[in-house]
């Protein structure tokens, strides 16, 4: 099983990310489907609890908000760690629409992004292969001070100062 950072710890995780091609014939287990494939499922499958959507970086998702907000897990894909669109995706889902399920960052992220990912509302993060996850945990606490509002910070520093 793969490992990822969830909350403040390293956990084993069974959710498997499927591509559009793989989504034609679903294996058993916890599955993350491309958003379009997930939306095409019938209500029963979508609410089964072991199928969830992943959103590609830059993919439009707001047309599907009513369904997304009921998903147990939403993954956001970062094709490279330099592609920061997923931070806005998270802010919109978590900060603006108060998504309550688990928000996961998948793809090629580096530990130096953990603090910002957490601030934008991600609860779990898959880091690039070869990362010492236990060592990376400390990056979640790189900063104790934040100036601005974000998904995890309701009031800016200037209202708390």
């Amino acid at each position, binding site marked *: 099983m793969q490992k990822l950072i969830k909350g403040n710890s390293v956990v084993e995780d069974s959710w498997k990310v499927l591509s559009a091609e793989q989504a034609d014939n679903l294996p058993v287990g916890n599955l993350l489907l491309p958003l379009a494939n997930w939306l095409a499922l019938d209500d029963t499958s979508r609410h089964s609890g072991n199928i969830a959507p992943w959103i590609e970086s*830059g993919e439009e998702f707001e047309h599907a908000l009513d369904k997304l907000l009921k998903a147990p897990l939403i993954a956001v894909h970062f094709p490279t*760690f*330099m*592609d*920061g*669109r997923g*931070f*806005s995706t998270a*802010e919109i889902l978590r900060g*603006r629409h108060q998504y309550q399920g688990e928000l996961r960052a998948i793809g090629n992220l*580096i530990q*130096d*992004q953990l*603090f*910002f*990912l957490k*601030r*934008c509302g991600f609860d779990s993060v898959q880091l690039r292969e070869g990362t010492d996850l236990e060592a990376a945990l400390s990056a979640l606490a*790189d*900063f*104790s*001070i*934040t*100036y*601005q*509002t*974000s998904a995890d910070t*309701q*009031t*800016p*520093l*200037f*209202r708390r*100062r």
Partner: protein
Amino acid sequence: MYQYDHYDRQLLSERVAQFRGQTERYLAGELSDAEFLPLRLQNGLYIQRLAPMLRMAVPYGLLSSTQLRKLAHIARHYDKGYVHFTTRQNIQLHWPNLEEVPDILAELAQVDMHAIQTSGNCVRNTTSDQFAGVAPDEIEDPRPWCELIRQWSTLHPEFAFLPRKFKIAVSGSQNDRAAILIHDIGLQLVKNDQGELGFTVFVGGGLGRTPVIGSLIRDFLPWQHLLTYLNAILRVYNRYGRRDNKYKARIKILVKAWTPEVFAEKVEAEWLPYKDGSLTLTAEEVARTKTFFTLPAYKTLDAAAVEQQLHSQALANTDFQRWLSRNVSAHRVPGYAAVTLSLKPTGVAPGDVTDSQLEAIADLADSYSFGEVRATHNQNVVLADVEKTALFELWQKIAPLGFATPTVGTITDIICCPGGDFCSLANAKSIPIAETIQRHYEDLDYVYDLGDLSLNISGCMNACGHHHVGNIGILGVDKKGEEFYQIQLGGRSDENAGLGAVLGPSFYPQDVPSVIAKILQVYVDSRQQEELFIDTYERIGITPFKEAVYAKAD
């Protein structure tokens, strides 16, 4: 100026610790070059042609004498004894050791300075008018607003991996000295008919390979909404700015592709859900921020007597009179003036200052200007609050220090990037071209006769030397390994900002001075009365200049 409290200091020390860890991981091989790249850039660290380069942030150009002395120490201890003032009011070290950068950042943090977001694809240092707070034509002091933007943009979690860099400038006067129309966001402080304060918002200006003048997207944004609205612009850009081609990734390309009207609608839609939310500025916070920019303890001076004294000093000393006419600017308080220390003596790279000169500037600031200075986007330094009775004494002190070159705003007050001597992006050298031109125009009478004239030089199309908006712009180009220089005419970066037009085929470096001479001759022959170079150019167009420069000898 803004005073850090324990929150700001805590954040800086955490940033230093974070970067120290990142540098150690890189040196230990745990971080790849590609992964370390954005992390070091977001701390201002480039790997350059000859050595790393560290760009340190000078928020909206303000520096205290304490900070200047620290910079002098850093230049001496960690570098080769000099620093470089940039066109975005920042300061660069050109020879630091990578291993020592965390120590340099720790030293900077001791005086509330840093290198956060001075490079990389993030929100950069907010720039402003060097005469903020003292300019007679000011509607509102832009510095508190710049500081609010600085805090909002510092380590913003959503906008650290934008498609490309992002620059914001704020002007508090209608006469724009902050070049806001060539920034990703330009903010003009204005008052509406009811006397309420707000911002006119421009987006999508920028230089580089595709120079564009910013487009108006909002006439009047009430001040309370500044940060929520900026957040909306950045989110729209972060989501929709192009990421497939770095040369098409700036916000200007998105604004052009969508049109400013559509871009404004998208921002509006993104903004409305957050309008009046918790990021809305409060009167208390604005008042708190303004307390850091209150007027210093000005004396009540007898303006008439002061002017009388100055007049006779000027009459008795032509050199002093010349300096007064070019390097001293009006101040809103009677009996005071703003003094520009020129960093453009011939033979020195524009904007370069030694460690001992930094200390001298610190001493001058303490003696004459309440301990503060401002870096300008023209790569000079301003003492903003000098008593006019002290001008003569100040002038006598700065002349031997090399700061009294009486050419501010003239053809030899050249804006120039570091160019091919230092920068790995450059196609051509720029500093030697600046020096050659300065040597050709050492006759001050001729320089003064030419009057206000900006000459800007960039060593490549990235345009760090702002060549597109120089009245005369020079661009270094590489043709099959040889350095050539293209000349543009008619650019300006003020409230009537416009881009220069290319004169024609480029020139060998040795021919640049004679080409400039021909251009100036056309101006001198064609001008009417007190017409400035830019006015003559706009009246007669580029053709007469082309004809004069490219005319075949009979």
